[in-house]
């Protein structure tokens, strides 16, 4: 399964890539994007089976990206895990209402990500 990681921090993209490789989920190619605009362009060229996305990003934030992805029928069922410092209950609810499949608050442990992934597949 190919994966798209969307985060404006290259450090987080690197850490998440490492965690994905250790998880009990078969991972193929991992694509990266620094914001929602880049992520949509990447998705059009490379359909994936899982998306991990931050919320607070420039150009197009994670909630706008989530809305756009869910509006496209072929991407409606792709699992999207939000991984973000935005920990308020309002943001969590908003993400879930927009179609997020799960939510992990930063800071996170590798185990937390792996548990969430296991729950998605």
């Amino acid at each position, binding site marked *: 399964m190919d994966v798209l990681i969307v985060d404006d*921090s290259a*450090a987080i993209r*690197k850490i998440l890539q490492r965690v994905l490789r250790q998880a009990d989920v078969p991972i193929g190619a991992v694509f990266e994007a620094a914001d929602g605009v880049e992520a949509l362009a990447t998705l059009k060229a490379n359909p994936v089976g899982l998306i991990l996305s931050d919320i607070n990003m420039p150009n197009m934030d994670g909630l706008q990206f989530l809305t756009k992805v869910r509006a496209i029928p072929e991407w409606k069922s792709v699992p999207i895990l939000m991984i973000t*410092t935005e*920990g308020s209950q*309002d943001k969590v609810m908003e993400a879930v209402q927009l179609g997020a499949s799960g939510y992990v608050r*930063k*800071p*996170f*442990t590798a185990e937390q990500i792996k548990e969430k992934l296991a729950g998605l597949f």
Partner: protein
Amino acid sequence: MSIDHDLLTKTVRESTAEVFSTMLGIELEQGEAFVTKSPAAAGDGVLAFIGLAGRWVGTGSVSVSGALACHLSSRFLTSDYRSVDDDVLDAMGELTNMIIGNVKTTLEESLGPMGLTIPTVIYGRNFTSRTLGTQEGTKVLFHMNGERMEIHVCLALNRDNVRLRPSFNVQSLLMH
């Protein structure tokens, strides 16, 4: 109405301890905390800061020496960094995002919703930073490997969300 500095200090200490133990596997030694109105003394190293905006507005920043930034980034990314480069600046920006982001989430319970800006990171020598205005800020110190990390949060009540600026009468200028 002013900020409760004891609550802010406690929140910064808890958030920082959580980020360091979870992401870096490091238990930090707590240092003193104090309220300050004066700008930071000129210093060297890495300064990462994030803006906060809502009913309360201000900034949160983390500053460390270049050597400590390299050490923290090495732990964060499980690589060996010996000099400050793009990876180190990015790692310091993300650590700051997590610390100040979690401070924000806790403070929102008492201060109302706030937004976070994207982190900005500066690396240099003999530079000074200051938040404009006269409000007090809370500075919280931590120690590690004989080095010091400073976290500074400065928040003030946003009395009017849109502040009109005095403007020239352009028409009168054009007529002469």
